[in-house]
């Protein structure tokens, strides 16, 4: 059986600049795959090729085993980061417009969205706008869902409810590809892919993604001073409450800097975050 979405050696060059460099990935039915990376890592360009919106310089983007066509793209549902709604149209007009474009019946509205069916999208709170964009992308019953940072700016309860809906689509066999740079979204995925500088640099679980990165927490009474001296020593530091987190530390150097400043501190190994992994990649 073919993967729903597949990239084989996918490459995109703009002049001398290689935005996407030999990326291979696949999304199967019923799984939620998270595509992670900093800005400029190549996530959006990869998505555009997979959606058939940009032609690869080399390699192949395949939708159910064949390059995407106008017809096969009907099997896709896509929610861009900007949501792709028309702010001067009402909720139900947006739905009708998207339905007509895909040649399907407009979906019925439920809950809070049903109460707002005649409201202009411009006047809708962000949480509801996100829900509407989701309904618009799903109403033609796609087999593949591509979501760009689906829950950014939404409060926690609304976010977990949106994820419930994404998961229930996956449970029905839809393959979902999510781009994000937030931990909380990454944790909702079955499998993660990490891009950096156009390349796929790690994949698997959260543990696989952060593999090779270390972080320690430096706990000192005078946290402000600890932060100051470690930062001045050129280490990648961050504050976490009153602890100073150091990414990929050179243990001897760290101890020497603390000792030289006469600072009493305890140093504990902590689980690195995906953000810390990305910071390490950027510094390398």
């Amino acid at each position, binding site marked *: 059986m073919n993967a729903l979405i597949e990239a084989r050696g996918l490459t995109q060059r703009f002049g001398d600049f290689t935005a996407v460099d030999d990326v291979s990935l696949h999304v199967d039915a019923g799984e939620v795959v998270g595509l992670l990376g900093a800005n400029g890592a190549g996530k959006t360009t990869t998505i555009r090729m997979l959606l058939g919106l940009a032609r690869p310089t080399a390699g192949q983007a395949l939708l159910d085993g064949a390059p995407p066509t106008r017809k096969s793209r009907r099997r896709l549902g896509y929610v861009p980061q900007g949501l792709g709604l028309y702010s001067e149209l009402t909720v139900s007009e947006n739905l009708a417009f998207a339905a007509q474009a895909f040649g399907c019946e407009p979906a019925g509205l439920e809950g809070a969205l049903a109460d707002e069916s005649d409201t202009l999208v411009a006047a809708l709170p962000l949480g509801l706008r996100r829900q509407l964009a989701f309904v618009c992308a799903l109403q033609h019953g796609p087999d593949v869902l591509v979501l760009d940072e689906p829950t950014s700016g939404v409060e926690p309860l609304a976010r977990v409810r949106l994820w419930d809906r994404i998961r229930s689509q996956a449970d029905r066999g839809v393959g979902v590809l999510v781009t994000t740079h937030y931990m909380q979204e990454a944790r909702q995925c079955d499998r993660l892919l990490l891009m950096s500088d156009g390349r796929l640099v790690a994949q698997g679980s959260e543990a696989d993604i952060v593999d090779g990165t270390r972080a320690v927490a430096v706990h000192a009474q005078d946290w402000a001073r600890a932060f100051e001296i470690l930062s001045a020593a050129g280490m990648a530091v961050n504050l976490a409450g009153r602890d100073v987190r150091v990414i990929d530390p050179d243990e001897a150097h760290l101890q020497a800097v603390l000792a030289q400043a006469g600072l009493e501190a305890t140093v504990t190994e902590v689980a690195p975050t995906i*953000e810390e992994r990305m*910071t390490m990649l950027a510094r390398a």
Partner: protein
Amino acid sequence: MSVQDLTVRRGHTLALDDVSLETPAGRITAVVGGDGAGKTTLLEALVGLVEPASGTVDTPDRAQIGYMPSGAGSWYDLTVDENIGFVGGSYGVRDLAQRADELLTRADLMHARDRLVGRLSGGMRQKLGFCLAMLHQPELLILDEPSTGVDPVSRVELWRLISETAAAGTAVVMSTTYLDEAERAGWVLVLERGKNLLSGSPDEVVASCPGEVVETDAPVHTELSWRSGEHYREWWPDGAPDGQVPAVLTLEDVSIVASLREGLTS
């Protein structure tokens, strides 16, 4: 520096409903909430941009407040240096050249001084917004969603700048929609529809969670459960039945519980 029992109306809606907050020197306070929760209104009240309907706002003189509005508050058609010159001039910053060098070096923006702000990346623009708000060495620094739209690498850099500022004794108040970010702050205030949903140090807030939250693969009440990684979490308002595994809670979980509780009581 504090706000007491602050209520702010915007038209017919209560943008803030009886909110209190202290912002001592050297502490990072994170104001958290989704779209429309009242974060910006609270920050604007601190800056003196909105009038309270009731309650008090006790902050230093305007000249001692640094404010970065959401969207970074810089001018796109001016270069980085021109932005610095304009803001520095309006605050009458002495030793502006030296101060600008120091801040732009810390923010790693020295190489971009002659670039138009409209051509900078989102992360660079937010770092510049931070520099502009810090030019006059304020006692209170207010940042409205500094990390929104900023990628993880720039976010870590922005946090370094904010942490350094707090470590040097400035009171910092910042808003964010991300609870994992708020976990790094010394104090957290979670707003929902203008109300104080939760507040305290991150540890206190997590410890204050009512009832019990368990980790499970088979939630009993779907409306009181949510997915977290490969498992579910379920909230039992009056305690969980025997044999359930207690979950290690994050601010995110506690915030979800607080919203669920609001829903149950209202």
